[in-house]
């Protein structure tokens, strides 16, 4: 059984008005906790001026040549191909990643398929208690993957790396039975990659 940890980063908090600028994923073997493979790409923004967006991204994370990047449709299809038949985990994924993916697929006419998704924040609450602050930064500090010197914001690449490591730690500590999930899963969507 493999799990795919997903991060989809957007330019703001609005599902309707903001753009996806990064899509990334890590495949983890649920039995060994080993990182098997990873995928990530920055995405050409749809609506913001590309020059302004490059400045925004460079000042926050790293220099990116957005003109050469895939569109959001291409990036989501590539993500779906990478995920294959595996299940997803994302941090607050059902209310962050999935609404964005669903909306972008609808807007770009991409047919979708259901995919099972767990929320790593649910895993953290299961481990640490329901009143615990389960922001990724707090979890990263708890698992000694970040400290007070870690830059804010993390940046989407580092966010994905830390999320992958946090999930591996939590999965090992929760130790679900083989083939079982440690927390309830919901239903998300990914684009259908093979229409034949």
């Amino acid at each position: 059984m493999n799990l795919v940890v997903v991060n989809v980063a957007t330019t703001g908090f609005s599902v309707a008005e903001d753009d996806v600028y990064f899509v990334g994923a890590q495949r983890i073997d649920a039995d060994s906790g080993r990182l098997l493979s990873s995928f990530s790409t920055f995405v050409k923004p749809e609506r913001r001026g590309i020059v302004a967006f490059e400045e925004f991204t460079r000042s926050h994370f790293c220099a990116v040549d957005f003109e050469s990047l895939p569109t959001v449709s291409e990036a989501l299809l590539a993500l779906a191909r990478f995920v294959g038949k595996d299940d997803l985990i994302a941090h607050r994924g059902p209310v962050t990643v999935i609404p964005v993916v669903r909306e972008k697929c609808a807007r770009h006419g991409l047919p979708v398929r259901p995919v099972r998704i767990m929320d790593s924040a649910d895993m953290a609450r299961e481990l640490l208690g329901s009143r615990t602050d389960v922001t990724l930064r707090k979890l990263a500090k708890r698992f000694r993957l970040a400290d007070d010197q870690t830059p804010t914001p993390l940046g989407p690449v580092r966010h994905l790396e830390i999320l992958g490591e946090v999930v591996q730690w939590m999965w090992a500590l929760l130790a679900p039975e083989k083939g079982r999930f440690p927390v309830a899963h919901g239903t998300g969507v990914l684009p259908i990659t093979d229409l034949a």
Partner: protein
Amino acid sequence: MIMDVVVFDLKTTGDHSPNQDVIIAISAVRMTAGHLETMQRFDALAPFNGPLPSWLKPAGLVDAARTEALIRFSRFVGDAWLLAEQGPSDKMPFIHEECLRSRLPTREVCVLDTGDFARKLWPDVCLGSLHDFAKRLGVLEENEFCEVDQKLKLLAEVVHHMWGKLSPDFEVCPVGSCTGFLPACS
């Protein structure tokens, strides 16, 4: 498009995750062409295995099974658009997940987010909550707080003010919409 929206709010068992938490109450009111249709109000309370939270005042809420409450809510909405605080991300996933769990067929509905109105009105100010918007609009005093059971009224007032500032004739929706899902009515 003449404004025809249903402003709504959900109460859930935890506000955390649609995978773990369930809807326990739905409240909604219709707003047409800038007028709050106070006679067209929807309230439903869904049962769950546990005590009701102390802040939830069930007076006026009609008790109904969760799926029945969602179907009735969908009928109440009709062809209107939905509008809620963080509607597309924090509210609609709970409804959609409940439909999937209950194997209810769904229909598409346009959904708006109060946050998009606020970001359009005040692009350079970081405002997080409904209380922030209400204080900015003068609907709430600086030190005033809204009781939980008054939240829908406050939400509707804030929507009325923000929409009116961005589109005074209420004929154009001033922000982008998303696609959400409600139970199919038929």
